[in-house]
């Protein structure tokens, strides 16, 4: 009889499972309740004693609300659409080509660039006084200096481009494991034998299968674009503001009556998120089910700019680090000089004296929350992997696991923050770490998916049938094999935690300063030299943990291989 590696009878496993469920999912309930009660003006602790729809009325009457809503939807849908289309075009034109190897190997470091650091660097490149304009002036003369701007521009074009460029590597990474599940080799052989080109095969056969499988990643991309605040503050439009920024401002407004409007706005954000996800689902359905005649209507296929996209996406991403380094070492860099006129290390030496405290905060919170979230993700994976046996009717559904990733973060945090007012004493670190666990958990869970799916369960069964204790089976047989994936998942969790802005600011009441909160504060204060320094640190920290994960993971896989080689000899 099969037993789970963590014995199903073991009460300690059940306790851990319960703890995992409580810590990772229970906060969603007060988050929603807090949000609803603030929006409907019933929150006695804040002196709101009667249900009312006043906040919604004020929300609707807010000058320019519709503009903000439409702008948010425009930014979200366009950036998601572009990211999906361009990622697919990259796959179509570059998959397994001679350049594929470097595309794949650069994926992780590019993906590891935090959004905030990316935004700060993007501004240095593409603002009207950015490096790009300096080149334009050099070539075309000062009178041609740009008057248009991709930073804070009216239609959010800068934000759309940034989100698209930043999400392409994410979708590519997610596609890697998806494409392995599809039987590509055979598909190509069949298509080629029928006279279809590789490109036609991608568009007519693989696209539909890919689109269905990439759905959840697109959902995550869309929700992020809709609810992002930190990046929008740095680069997003200001007239009108995107809805998420508007809600953030109401939440911070000196007049307490804005709390209810903020609540109603955060609820609207949640509704828009659901609407956006439905839109994506409907588009998917239209393309793959309803109007599928294009799939069988002949050999025509769209020319997609895959190669160009890769170049643009990778070049911009790879320029971010050097431009940040340049600004961090700048003393004087007047426009339109191509390089700093006077260099200085003084900004670095000033900041380095004070940075250790912020690094300690960042890394300390990330270590605790990522490790906890990893533990819980493993426990829930173990629990869920039993459901295939059919012996347990109950399992944790994927949608619940992904919820913190799919719901707008601002909406959830608003509800949580308001709930903390009910707790008599402040526990800033506890709340911040807890929130980081909740938001890091789904990413860690996802990162473990592949390893859990491909693990050969027969190994467990043999060990168990030979009488080994369930936990020992997991520890000595399964763990070493999935260790590289565990390490990567842990590093993913670290990077998610290190990049959190809103949870740290909102639940830490501003008292907890991390590298990320500092980077956002300095970037919105237009302090180019110091914000470059913090953006670099923000990039360096997760990179170090990824490096650690890769190096130690390699050690494990070598050891595993040696073990099996020794056995087979």
């Amino acid at each position, binding site marked *: 009889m099969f037993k789970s590696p963590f014995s199903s009878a073991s009460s300690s496993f059940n306790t851990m499972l319960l703890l995992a469920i409580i810590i990772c999912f229970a906060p969603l309930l007060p988050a929603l309740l807090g949000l609803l009660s603030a929006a409907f003006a019933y929150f006695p*602790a*804040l*002196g709101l004693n009667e249900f009312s729809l006043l906040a919604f009325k004020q929300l609707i009457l807010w*000058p*320019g609300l519709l*503009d*903000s809503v439409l702008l948010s939807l425009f930014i979200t849908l366009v950036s998601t659409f572009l990211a999906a289309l361009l990622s697919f075009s990259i796959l179509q034109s570059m998959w397994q080509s001679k350049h594929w190897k470097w595309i794949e190997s650069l994926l992780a470091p590019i993906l590891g660039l935090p959004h905030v650091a990316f935004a700060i660097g993007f501004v240095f490149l593409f*603002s*009207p*006084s950015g490096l790009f304009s300096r080149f334009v002036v050099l070539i075309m003369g000062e009178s041609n*200096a740009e*008057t248009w*701007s991709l930073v*804070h*521009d*009216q239609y959010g074009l800068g934000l759309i481009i940034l989100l698209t460029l930043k999400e392409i590597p994410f979708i590519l990474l997610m596609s890697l494991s998806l494409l392995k599940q599809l039987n590509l080799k055979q598909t190509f052989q069949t298509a080629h034998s029928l006279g279809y080109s590789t490109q036609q095969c991608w568009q007519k056969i693989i696209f539909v299968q890919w689109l269905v499988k990439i759905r959840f990643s697109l959902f995550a991309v869309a929700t992020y674009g809709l609810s992002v605040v930190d990046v929008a503050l740095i680069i997003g439009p*200001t*007239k*009108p503001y995107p809805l998420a920024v508007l809600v953030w401002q109401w*939440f*911070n*407004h*000196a*007049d*307490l009556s*804005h*709390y209810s409007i903020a609540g109603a706005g955060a609820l609207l954000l949640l509704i828009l998120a659901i609407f956006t996800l439905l839109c994506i689902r409907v588009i998917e359905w239209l393309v793959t089910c309803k109007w599928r005649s294009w799939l069988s209507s002949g050999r025509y296929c769209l020319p997609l700019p895959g190669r160009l996209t890769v170049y643009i996406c990778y070049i911009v991403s790879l320029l971010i680090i050097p431009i940040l380094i340049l600004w961090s070492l*700048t*003393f*004087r860099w*007047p*426009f*339109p000089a191509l390089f700093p006129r*006077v260099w*200085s290390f003084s900004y670095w030496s*000033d900041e380095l004296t*004070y940075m250790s405290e912020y690094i300690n905060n960042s890394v300390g919170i990330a270590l605790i929350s990522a490790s906890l979230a990893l533990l819980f993700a493993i426990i829930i994976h173990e629990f869920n992997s039993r459901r295939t046996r059919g012996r347990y009717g109950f399992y944790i559904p994927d949608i619940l696991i992904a919820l913190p990733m799919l719901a707008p973060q601002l909406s959830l945090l608003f509800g949580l923050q308001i709930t903390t*007012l*009910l707790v*008599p*004493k*402040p526990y*800033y670190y506890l709340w911040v770490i807890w929130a980081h666990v909740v938001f890091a958990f789904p990413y860690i869970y996802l990162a473990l998916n592949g390893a859990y799916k491909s693990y050969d369960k027969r190994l467990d069964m043999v060990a168990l049938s030979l009488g080994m204790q369930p936990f020992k089976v997991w520890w000595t047989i399964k763990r070493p094999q999935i260790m590289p994936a565990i390490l990567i998942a842990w590093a993913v969790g670290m990077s998610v935690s290190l990049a959190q802005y809103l949870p740290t600011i909102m639940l830490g*009441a*501003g*008292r907890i*300063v991390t590298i990320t909160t*500092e980077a956002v*504060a*300095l970037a*919105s*204060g*237009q*302090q*180019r*030299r*110091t914000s470059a320094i913090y953006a670099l640190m923000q990039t360096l920290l997760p990179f170090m943990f990824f490096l650690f994960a890769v190096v130690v993971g390699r050690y494990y896989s070598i050891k595993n291989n040696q073990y099996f080689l020794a056995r087979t000899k």
Partner: protein
Amino acid sequence: MKYFFSALILLLSNMALASQLDWQAISDKAKGQTVYFFAWGGSNEINNYLRWANKSLQAQYGVTLKHVKVSDISESISQLLAEKTAKKNQNGHIDMVWINGENFKSMKQHQLLGNAFAKQLPNWPFVDKTLPVNSDFAEPTLGLEAPWGVGQLVFIYDKNTITTPPTSFADLLTYAQQHPQKISYPKPPAFHGTSFLKAALLELSNNNQLLYQAVTKNTFQRISAPLWSYLDKLHAVAWQKGQQFPTNGSETLQLLDDKQLDIAISFNPNEVISAQANGTLAKSTATYAMQAGALSNIHFLAIPWNANAREGALVAINFLLSPEAQSRKGDLTIWGDPTVLQKQYVTGSAKNTTLFKSIAEPHPSWQAALEAEWQTRYGH
């Protein structure tokens, strides 16, 4: 009658006692406390100054000063209000705030400030009483906040770009029309943006004295009308055609250095000196004020009623008012914020600051009204 007098005397002496701070006990209690100081954090010069203050406070008084960088102090006031309503009267998360004007009025009105303290600080005697340190935008401070520095709305330009800068708002419009896309101001309700509106309104309304009284619907419509027609004309030729505004004062400085704007806005008459010393502005930049004078105000330090480290905050504020701290704050290469102490007590370049002719701030109620109207007209 006799009883009445003795009761009165007793009462008065009690009040005097109650308001007398036992400084020894306070500094003993402050030792080891951490003071969370919520203050605008968008300037390297200010941030670095507060880092120095923390070091000195730790060394001299055993008090740790943590600067919590906020982008607008009104954020913190909403949090305090939430705590007040939720009856969290202890262990508050804010120990000290940097405020003035509308925000002070709001804190006072909602009783978010504790007992009066300013005049009992050991360093109070050094304060220059010729400055309006007892009222904040015409609102009596009642010792609920202590003055920290003087702000004057000034303009910065590059002498290589402009020979004679426009010294009135009327001239500014003419300049903007001659040099399209080169003039702008921070987007209200950013502090510098609202101040720009107030200064413009003062000039355009010929210093209407009604601006110094609480705003009414009637006076607002009548007096503010010239401002909106002025702004309509200005926006048509402004930077990004008035479709975009800088987010705060520091962005105008950056845009000046980027040659996007010809004129930047600051509340520190010495900003250009420290900015040149830090490499953020060119050596050819200079400061000027409008001919009518510079909108002037004093910025203050206050302690919320539920502060967790009230004693530490008192010690910190007293230190920030000391000749040592004020001289450093006024040092032109460090921050250059004009001192609130009498000149004879400060040393170094802080002594050399000369203020521009000053224009008093309008009644604080005008601020919210102007911001709301601006939002409806141009904010979206």
